[in-house]
């Protein structure tokens, strides 16, 4: 019955949806007819958005005024555009978070915000000068011209820092908001905001299928801010360009002055919309994907190599190594028909809304009270769900609002194969394994300390083995991202894949500022030629041109010359600075088939975890760069400069509180352990050699022997079982410790065997303890206080002296007294100290994922593992000694034979006294 009911319910719902759809379609058909034209749309999805009038900023229909569109008033007819603009970090870009220079946590003295309005980036170089400066790079109007290409409008393109409309902000001399730098003189001159207008938030850039972004950017660069949004519509048929002017096309509007239905293409943002500013998106499966070069337009692709596309790499137009075998898509989420907005949704979108469990009373499983679609469409939050990255510092209060991998994916069913799952998942982000390789290229470093004749710096890409005219002819090898700690948002960090981009540049003054680009160009170039003195110093081969090898600041003289030039322009104390900006990578995700899965990828000498990443092929001015502040990644390793001048970043597990079995070791532990082991071995060899030599010279007397049933069946069994377990444990432990030396063994299998053996050892030890306790045999191991030390010394003296003379063993060995005092001491130590310690550390290492807190209190793996290793060395040493001492019986193999067969030939001392009668036992040292 319940099933029926559910089905019925679903049928009703589906029928309802169907009816609704039909009604909408019918309505559309009617509307289309009313428009008197066929509504031919290329959109596969039906167009729900109604027709609307396009208004200018005064609310007048643009058909009447001929003025540019005001999105705020036009879209504001139905949507709360003021609310949208006020709740969008895409519009704000740091305006609301402006601080005094140098207080953003980035470590840069000239940064004034966390967004690109006020935050410097080494790729783009130019920066918004702090308001308090008196020498400027970019002021606000020029920032809009320059960085408006990746700004949706609104925010700093519309309002002053005090929240006034820029068109209403009174002119102030020396103020960055109402002035612009004269490119010739470097002096400020007034900017007429009334004339230029402001850039309102551009709805079309994200909500129409083919916005004309280039026309928008051109209009911004021209300073024609008011027209930028209108230019976005060029090519849609709504606006046309006539003799350099943008003119509204009356044919696109109906008689009521509304945009005709067929011109209404408003849509939810697609990934391609996002791609205009964020990176390469390629959803067309039939045309091969080609990356045209290292262009900053495709921002995330340049900074990390990320490409969001369902296309298989083997079908792309790029020249990739072993391309035929690359049957994976660029990004599995793109392949699975997700869009950017599937994860980066508007935070109050009821479809994706995440109810915070802490807000909900415990007795409620679902709270149905939420905003409805109408409210959402009126006031859609344009704060989008975001993760956290090393590079993105804007709107950090929204960090990790998006669903993380584990919010959608259950690892329960998919990662059963992974041993120590929790340990791995705590130490590693999903991306660490699922973004194993970047197949595209990305930027490696920027050298702004030099300027090429076209006025640009040197920028170098990584992952390109061979340059080509275009990227389709270049040979693109990609790169393996470096694993660095990334904040999880809950106070923990996990390793995540990163690209590192290093930038060197000149700074001047105190507090320091980057040398403005115009000054940099001016000190190098006279027109499009280098100054003669620069040429003279840099042109080593005298061919009249500076090639890549020459155009490098690699000597004090070169540095001093450029510094002198800069100083001559009034820039005090010029010096070279370098910084490393980490970019974390969260796209280009692969399915399990392509993820890093092999144990030895990390557990070996060459570990993925510590794979270094090249930062640059040289170090301008010899200046080592520093990590940009505010990113956890900084703490993950060290810079290494190779002899050939290349600079690497080397991650260090020690810096990351990690201990990767098979990769990490504590050097002194291994040295000490090895030394003890080798020392023992050497001692044994010397001792044995001396015994042999002594025996030859001085044959021992034939002892009187008596055959005794020395070891019971169970004693022998537990002994040999323990022998096998310990030997194998030591061997498998060694494989785990140094898997690279034992390539034939599967790491995973060896770990498993090690654990099983350990279990056998522990169980065997427990059972034999029980046996010894119950049978009273335990007394064998307990030293008797009376005369113990004397007897121990006597036994020692025997090993040092007597044994060479062929003396009798000092103590007889009997069934009740099998162990001599030295053995008792040794076994007391082994059984009460070494074994328990090894078992406990082993269990804790195994239990790191079960009881991580307990293990953490004892130092976690970095503390436990070396300790476990040290004890293993001691065990190895014991075995050598133990085996050697078994040979000290009346014949070398007597002891071993006895332990195998149970019957021992024991020496009988004295005058035929029966050895069984309470005399102290003593014999071979097995």
């Amino acid at each position: 019955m319940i099933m029926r009911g559910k089905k019925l319910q679903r049928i009703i719902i589906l029928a309802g949806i169907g009816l609704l759809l039909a009604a909408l379609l019918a309505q559309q058909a009617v509307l289309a007819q009313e428009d008197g034209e066929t509504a031919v749309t290329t959109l596969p999805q039906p167009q729900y958005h109604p027709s609307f009038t396009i208004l200018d900023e005064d609310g007048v229909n643009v058909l009447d005024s001929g003025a540019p569109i005001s999105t705020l008033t036009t879209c504001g007819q139905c949507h709360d555009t003021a609310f949208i603009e006020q709740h969008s970090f895409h519009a704000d870009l740091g305006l609301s978070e402006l601080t005094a220079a140098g207080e953003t946590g980035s470590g840069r003295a000239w940064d004034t915000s966390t967004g690109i309005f006020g935050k410097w980036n080494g790729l783009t170089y130019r920066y918004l000068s702090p308001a308090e400066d008196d020498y400027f790079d970019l002021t606000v109007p020029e920032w809009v011209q320059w960085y408006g290409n990746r700004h949706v409008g609104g925010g700093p393109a519309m309002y002053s820092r005090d929240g006034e409309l820029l068109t209403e902000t009174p002119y102030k001399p020396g103020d960055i908001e109402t002035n612009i730098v004269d490119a010739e003189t470097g002096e400020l001159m007034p900017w007429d905001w009334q004339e230029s207008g402001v850039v309102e938030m551009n709805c079309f850039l994200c909500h129409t299928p083919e916005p004309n972004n280039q026309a928008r950017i051109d209009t911004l660069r021209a300073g024609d801010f008011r027209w930028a949004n209108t230019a976005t519509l060029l090519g849609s048929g709504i606006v046309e360009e006539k003799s350099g002017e943008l003119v509204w096309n009356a044919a696109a509007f109906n008689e009521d002055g509304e945009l005709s239905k067929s011109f209404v293409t408003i849509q939810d943002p697609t990934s391609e919309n996002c791609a205009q500013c964020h990176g390469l998106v390629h959803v067309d499966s039939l045309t091969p994907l080609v990356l045209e070069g290292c262009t900053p337009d495709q921002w995330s692709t340049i900074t990390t190599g990320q490409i969001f596309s369902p296309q298989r790499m083997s079908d792309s137009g790029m020249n990739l190594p072993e391309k035929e075998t690359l049957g994976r898509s660029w990004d599995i989420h793109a392949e699975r028909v997700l869009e950017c907005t599937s994860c980066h949704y508007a935070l109050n979108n009821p479809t994706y809304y995440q109810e915070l469990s802490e807000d909900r009373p415990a007795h409620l499983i679902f709270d149905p009270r939420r905003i409805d679609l109408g409210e959402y469409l009126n006031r859609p939050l344009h704060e989008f769900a975001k993760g956290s990255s090393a590079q993105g510092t804007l709107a950090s209060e929204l960090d990790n609002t998006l669903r993380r991998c584990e919010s959608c994916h259950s690892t329960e069913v998919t990662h059963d194969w992974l041993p120590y799952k929790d340990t791995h998942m705590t130490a590693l982000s999903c991306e660490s394994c699922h973004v194993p390789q970047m197949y595209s290229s990305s930027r490696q470093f920027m050298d702004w300390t030099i300027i090429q004749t076209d006025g640009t710096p040197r920028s170098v890409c990584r992952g390109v083995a061979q340059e080509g005219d275009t990227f389709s002819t270049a040979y693109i090898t990609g790169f393996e991202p470096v694993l660095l700690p990334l904040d999880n948002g809950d106070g923990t960090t996990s390793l995540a894949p990163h690209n590192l981009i290093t930038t060197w540049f000149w700074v001047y003054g105190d507090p320091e500022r980057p040398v403005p680009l115009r000054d940099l160009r001016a000190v190098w170039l006279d027109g499009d030629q280098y100054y003669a003195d620069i040429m003279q110093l840099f042109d080593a081969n005298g061919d009249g041109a500076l090639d890549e090898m020459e155009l490098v600041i690699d000597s004090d003289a070169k540095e001093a010359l450029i510094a002198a030039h800069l100083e001559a322009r009034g820039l005090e104390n010029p010096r070279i600075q370098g910084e490393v900006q980490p970019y974390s990578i969260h796209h280009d995700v692969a399915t399990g088939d392509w993820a890093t899965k092999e144990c030895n990828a990390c557990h070996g000498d060459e570990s993925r975890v510590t794979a270094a990443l090249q930062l640059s092929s040289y170090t301008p001015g010899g200046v080592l760069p520093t990590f940009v502040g505010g990113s956890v990644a900084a703490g993950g390793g060290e810079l290494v400069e190779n002899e050939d001048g290349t600079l690497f970043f080397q991650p260090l597990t020690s810096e990351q509180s990690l201990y990767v079995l098979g990769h990490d070791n504590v050097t002194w532990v291994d040295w000490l352990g090895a030394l003890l082991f080798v020392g023992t071995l050497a001692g044994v060899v010397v001792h044995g050699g001396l015994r042999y030599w002594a025996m030859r010279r001085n044959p021992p007397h034939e002892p009187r022997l008596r055959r005794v049933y020395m070891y019971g069946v169970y004693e022998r069994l537990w002994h040999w079982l323990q022998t096998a377990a310990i030997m194998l444990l030591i061997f498998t432990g060694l494989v785990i410790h140094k898997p690279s030396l034992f390539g034939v063994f599967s790491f995973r299998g060896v770990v498993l065997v090690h654990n099983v053996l350990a279990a056998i050892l522990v169980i065997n030890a427990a059972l034999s303890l029980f046996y010894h306790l119950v049978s009273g045999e335990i007394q064998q191991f307990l030293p008797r206080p009376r005369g113990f030390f004397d007897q121990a010394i006597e036994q020692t003296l025997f090993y040092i002296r007597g044994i060479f003379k062929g003396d009798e063993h000092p103590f007889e060995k009997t069934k009740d007294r099998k162990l001599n005092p030295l053995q008792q001491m040794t076994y007391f130590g082994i059984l009460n100290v070494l074994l328990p310690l090894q078992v406990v550390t082993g269990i804790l290492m195994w239990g790191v994922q079960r009881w991580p807190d307990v293990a953490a209190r004892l130092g976690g793996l970095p503390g436990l593992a070396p300790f476990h290793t040290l004890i293993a060395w001691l065990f190895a040493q014991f075995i050598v000694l133990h085996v050697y001492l078994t040979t000290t019986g009346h014949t070398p193999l007597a002891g071993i034979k006895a332990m195998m067969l149970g019957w021992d030939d024991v020496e009988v001392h004295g005058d035929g006294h029966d050895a069984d009668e309470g005399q102290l036992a003593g014999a071979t040292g097995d």
Partner: protein
Amino acid sequence: MKESKYIWIIGLVVTLLIIIVPIISVMADDTEPDPTDPWTGVPERRPHVDHTSLIEGPFETGSDVTRRCLECHEDAGQQMLTSVHWKWESDPVLLPGRDEPVTIGKKNQINNFCIGIQSNWTGCTRCHAGYGWENAEFDFSNEENIDCLVCHEQTGGYVKSNSGLPAEGVDLVAAAQSVATPTRQNCGGCHFNGGGGNAVKHGDLDSSLFFPTESVDVHMGRFDFQCVDCHKTEDHQIKGHLISVSADDKNTLSCTECHGGVIHEDERINSHLDAVACQTCHVPQGAIRDATKMDWDWSAAGQDLPEDPHVYLKIKGSFVYEKNFTPDYAWFNGKADRYLLGDVIDPTQMTVLNQPLGGIDDPTAKIWPFKIHTARQIYDSEYNYLIQPKTVGEGGYWTEFDWDLAARLGMETIGLPYSGEYGFVQTEMYWSLTHMVQPKEHALQCSDCHGENGRMDWEALGYYGDPIRWGGRTPMLDSVVPGMEEK
């Protein structure tokens, strides 16, 4: 306690057992069960007996050879006489909406390529596995008319001419001595050239399969499959059928005969299998090497225009060829309806000659890829049925360019009245795509069908919308098959 020298061996064994047994039991848990091995479904290839020494000539005719074959292979003749390769006709099948079962096949029905063999036997029966089918009187019960060589000879020099007779100059002795299990060369000789030339008809069979690379077909390219590895043959009954000539779903051949168990690692892909045929993803494009005919306009024939076998021929009209086309997709349960000669059509509408059966509410139907071949072909504009014209031979259209005469002669042969009024009407044929199978690296991906750039017309298939968002067809099936949900 007795002393035993060999007690230690027992001890050693026990100790080793205590260690090894737990390890093995733990390791064994770890290994995943083997998915069904597809190779178990592939027949073992037995070396064929070399017939060189067994057969001596000389042979005058093909039938001489056949007689020689039948001397040893006594049952083969009777086996062949009941096979479709001989009969060109199916067992009787009851088509939807009809009272009587009918037989379907090349023998008695028409298509929208060269239309039909009746009255044109001599040309069409070049590909018949027999000798001398030149009119309706052909003796189908005579074993000696069977052509053993066309399927079994391996010299490559055996060519058939009119009425299926060996061509002039063929070395019958050499051919007969070379016989072996049929290869792609034997099957492909006819099947890759269906429609009168390479790649014309099927869209998934063409001469690129004679020596296929891995990228043409994974079975034939990567593993060097022969046709008969999948089209398993017993007693000369070859497995497999196509709805162009066989409307029933008997004798079918499916991927799952070899690829069983949990086929894909990805649960999401496996959840498609109830509704999507393997071919839909694994035959992503048609005619990937050689262009195939997509449209044939007979009404344009007879004009003196520049000729190009892929564009226009005076005897045939104009064509549209396409290479690497994206298939059409339709529900298909293995059966098809069939246009039968004499069926009345609506000349204003498209006539489908072999409509695949099944729909979204048919649980046995799956979405299949098809090549749809469209044509404008001759019909009787008074009686409103399609015409079987005579094209080949005396009085045929290809010599006289006279449609009226061709129609009169053709209809006379099949015994249907011809009004003397003819016209041309739009027809369609469905050709399921099932060869040129691509491995997973080249199979369709989610975004090929789903999302804004998908190739499926979901609403035409009967879904509310893209099932990736709207859900699958289970709600549609519920009304038909109770309990589908629980499945």
